[in-house]
């Protein structure tokens, strides 16, 4: 980002932005002076702000957590507005605003709504300043100008976080494309020698007679060939971009069906809840099966010899949510941040592709997956995919 502007030595991005819009100490005084007028009106302004969002189909849908959270969101907006007028407009301010921006990135709020939303605040505040009954410490023109500058800065910071996110995505896409091609050709090439080994082993096994040790080692070679094959299959699944075969699916049936291919310790139980009433989803049966197989295999592994896996389905607006949780040790802080990246594993024998594949499959379905931390409890994965129809 910094490279796009002519920045001065030692100048932070925030300094540079302030210099660009011409925000200075005078503006800080003017904004502080506005507090006395704005604070009593803040509740009304935030009401207008959210009413405008609710009146518009698109922006209403973008509200995280739905309309029930509006009361809380209004309070957050009041705190935000308070800070806009009181400062201090320092690096901590910039960092806080970046965090708010990233929150908007995370919930995928379309950028174009931010301008309209900011304009609601701008016109409400200007209308307040212009009221004949309102008297200010500074001139009304100065108040409008300073307010314009700080709101422009707020927008600039928001856009900065979107750009930051885009650049991170871009570099990871490029890396993955090169990496993917390499992985693809190595994967396929490795299948040839493995195929020869496997067929040779087949012949060898029929000629071993009753030598128990020879059989034990032949079996061991066979198991290892299977593991190598599984790794190649997972890798190739990671990079494959064949179109999904989308159909209307009963997720409960997909999960019930895969339980048969799941190997669990005798002390581990699986419970399914809430699938009878669950709406169907649009998905690729094979890919969704793979997704839940990976999650359930991980859960089984986490439980060890004894434990409980619970899988429950529910509806969240336009989404179907499936939660997979276990009674294992959960995921530690350090691993949690990188949980869905390829080649991150906590298993002794894992390669770290299972959850990366889960993320890839769910994202190809237009859904999301996240890990929810449960203090003193096991892991919980939350998958959300769009419902059919």
């Amino acid at each position, binding site marked *: 980002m910094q490279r796009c502007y002519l920045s001065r030595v030692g100048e932070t991005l925030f300094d540079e932005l302030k210099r660009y819009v011409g925000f200075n100490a005078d503006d800080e005084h003017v904004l502080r002076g506005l507090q006395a007028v704005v604070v009593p009106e803040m509740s009304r302004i935030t009401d207008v702000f959210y009413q405008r969002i609710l009146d518009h189909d698109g922006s209403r849908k973008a509200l995280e957590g739905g309309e029930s959270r509006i009361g809380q969101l209004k309070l957050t907006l009041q705190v935000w507005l308070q800070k806009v007028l009181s400062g201090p407009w320092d690096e901590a301010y910039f960092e806080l605003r970046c965090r708010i921006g990233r929150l908007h990135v995370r919930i995928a709020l379309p950028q174009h709504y931010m301008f309209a939303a900011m304009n609601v605040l701008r016109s409400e505040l200007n209308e307040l300043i212009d009221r004949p009954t309102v008297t200010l410490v500074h001139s009304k023109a100065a108040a409008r100008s300073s307010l314009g500058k700080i709101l422009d800065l707020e927008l600039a910071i928001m856009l900065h976080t979107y750009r930051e996110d885009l650049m991170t995505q871009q570099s990871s896409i490029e890396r993955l494309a090169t990496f993917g091609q390499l992985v693809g050709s190595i994967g*396929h090439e490795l299948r*040839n020698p493995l*195929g*020869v080994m*496997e067929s040779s082993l087949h*012949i060898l096994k*029929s000629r071993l007679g009753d030598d128990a040790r020879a059989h034990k080692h032949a079996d061991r070679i066979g198991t290892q060939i299977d593991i190598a094959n599984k790794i190649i299959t997972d890798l190739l699944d990671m990079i494959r971009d064949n179109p999904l075969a989308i159909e209307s699916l009963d997720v409960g049936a997909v999960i019930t069906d895969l339980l048969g291919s799941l190997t669990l310790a005798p002390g581990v139980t699986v419970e399914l809840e809430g699938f009878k009433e669950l709406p169907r989803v649009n998905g690729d049966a094979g890919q969704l099966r793979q997704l839940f197989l990976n999650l359930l295999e991980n859960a089984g592994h986490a439980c060890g010899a004894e434990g409980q896996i619970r899988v429950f389905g529910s509806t969240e607006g336009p989404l179907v949510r499936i939660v997979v949780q276990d009674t294992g040790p959960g995921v530690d802080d350090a691993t949690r941040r990188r949980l869905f990246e390829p080649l991150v594993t906590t298993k002794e024998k894992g390669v770290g592709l299972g959850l990366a594949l889960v993320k890839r499959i769910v994202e190809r379905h237009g859904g999301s997956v996240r890990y929810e931390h449960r203090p003193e409890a096991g892991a919980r994965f939350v998958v959300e995919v769009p419902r059919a129809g």
Partner: protein
Amino acid sequence: MPGEKRQYLIADDNRALAENLAEIMRDQGDEVSIANDGADALRLIRGKKFDALLTDMRMPLMGGAALIKAIQGADPGLPVVVMTAYIGESDLVDARHSGVLAVLPKPVPIPLMLSLVGGARRDAR
């Protein structure tokens, strides 16, 4: 025809794999010929009636897809089993449409392969 040896053809440019599979089939008492690519296989097919063909998809000069197409002219009754490391590719979809008996992944699941070619009947498709 009971007692008579079945005749199979394997087409794969991976010679070691082709020979291994041939050895396994011969252990069952069948006769097996090996071809290194599609053109080689087609030459053998023109000279002899095989009970089944087991072919790879990716081979130099003439690949599996071209071979399957050519067979429709040379010996349309020949049952074909495809083996491939590239499950899900477009030439494979074409192959399925030209009526192959089965498509097996590589590494080849041997018992399944044996039962497929063993059960294959000429002119059954």
